């Protein structure tokens, strides 16, 4: 946030340093008469504004360079449509025009109907980095450590953590590089063991309900809540990522709640 603010204030200072309002008015007047040099100078001066808007509008999914390109196009449109004789400052006209261009771009790209590819890729990167760092240090990393490792900001990492929770379709269950067959087919491997464990002393309702939770979820619940293993430890045993353990825990607890609610 601060960086953005600084970028803006630097940008705005630059637009003020040399020109002064008079100079700018002249530039706009010359531009209206088709002076390409004046146009170039105006683009140069207001590019920081376009850049700052590209940075401020959406920080999560598209490559910044693409956004900047769209914002620049918006700036050119704003220059063409701006009427300096109306007496308004150019920036207050340019901001909605540039934002409008970016919004149209996203709409055309069908942005609302699918998870942006950029955030999917990032979610997978965060998942893999989480595993790598956990292996390296023997404990799960913090958000800051992930951010530093992947050169992302905190928000990007947190959004990725949430995306992993939310999007089943992210093919997160696909084997990761280096995973052995044995590890990925953990479901089968765990089968025999499962029957030997019973989940604490359960009343009849709960037992009945638990039976409706898939086996691997039951296993994971047991490891976390009966055996007191951490999610990272469970992940290592089961051969999936900690993020996936987290997702399965949340989902199965949700299911259990829903099932016990209907029972009672």
């Amino acid at each position, binding site marked *: *946030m*601060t960086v953005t*603010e600084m970028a*803006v*204030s630097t940008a*705005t200072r630059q637009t*003020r340093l040399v020109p002064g309002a008079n100079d700018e008015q002249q530039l706009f007047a010359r531009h209206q008469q088709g002076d390409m040099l004046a146009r170039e100078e105006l683009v140069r001066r207001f590019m920081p504004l376009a850049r*700052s808007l590209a940075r*401020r*509008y*959406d920080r999560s999914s598209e490559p910044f360079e693409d956004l900047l390109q769209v914002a620049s196009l918006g700036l050119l449109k704003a220059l063409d449509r701006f009427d300096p004789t109306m007496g308004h400052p150019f*920036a*207050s006209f340019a*901001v*909605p025009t540039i*934002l*409008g261009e970016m*919004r149209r771009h*996203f*709409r055309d790209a069908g942005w*609302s*109907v699918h998870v942006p590819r950029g955030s999917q890729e990032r979610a997978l990167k965060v998942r893999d980095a*989480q595993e790598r760092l956990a292996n390296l240090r023997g*404990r*799960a*990393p*913090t*958000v*800051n450590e*992930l951010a530093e490792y992947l050169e992302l900001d*905190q*928000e990007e*990492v*947190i959004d990725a*953590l*949430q995306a992993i*929770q939310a999007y089943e379709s992210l093919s997160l269950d696909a084997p990761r590089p280096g995973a052995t067959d044995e590890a990925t087919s953990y479901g089968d491997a765990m089968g025999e063991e499962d029957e030997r464990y019973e*989940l*604490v002393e*359960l009343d009849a309702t*709960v*037992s009945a309900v*638990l039976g409706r939770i898939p086996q691997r979820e039951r296993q994971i619940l047991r490891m*976390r*809540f*009966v055996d*007191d293993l*951490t*999610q*990272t430890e469970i992940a290592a045993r089961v051969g999936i990522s*900690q*993020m996936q*353990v*987290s997702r399965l*825990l*949340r989902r199965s*607890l949700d299911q*259990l*709640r829903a099932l*016990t609610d209907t029972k009672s």
Partner: protein
Amino acid sequence: MVVAPNVCLTLSNQPENVLLVREALSGMADTVGVDGVELNDIRTAVTEACNNVVLHAYEGGEGLLQVELYLAPATVEVVVRDHGTGIKPHIRGEEEDALGIGLSIIQALAPRVEFKDVEGGGTEVRMEFSTPETQELDALPRDGFEPPALAEEDLASTTALAVGPSELAHRVLPRVMCVLAARARFTTDRISDAELVADALVSGGFEASSKQHLRMSVSVAAREVAMRVGPLGGGTAGRLVAETNDGVGPVIEKLTDERRIASEGAFETLELTLRDNR
């Protein structure tokens, strides 16, 4: 009907709290199905309004940031409020342009914007966004709703919030908890545990408080997150901890390091502490 906000956040104007507000907005968006350009508009405009409070409302000092979210059919309204010296007096000199761009962004993205002075000092920015085709939630009547309060000495470490109904809380609270646990430098393991606790609180908390909002405050220290949930009805806080009938035993008890029930008159507050003892 005069309605209560669906989400009400009372927090410090520290820059990192803007992220918390943005995550709350994403949780809201997940619940009612706002996405794509609409969500981005809302997030961008609200971020600008919050950044104004961070940077300008208290002349570089710390103060209260209040954010309220109202979900109505086909509209989302967001109010960002401060109790500082106000934004308007700052629109001059060096800061004029930076602030001006923020305000033009808000005006460009929110179909309706209203700036108001807050009684006793401060500014309120009220932004209304149109969100057609979103899922409707039950309206919450105002019914004496008070925004969660925060003592001045707690401002730096604590976030207070009220959220309802439960289907919204289910999406918003874990996200907010994720931000706060990350701030406490929790590992991703414990962050997930904190989210599971938030889930459990949402599942049992509404019944226990017999209110339309779940109210809580969360304090963050190094590797420690302390929650105070309530006010809850007398005798219900204990049940909330003990009877999370999940089939795996009491989830809250398993995942927290300390639990305490404080009684005050007819009400109880459930105090939970999570640590990351890695």
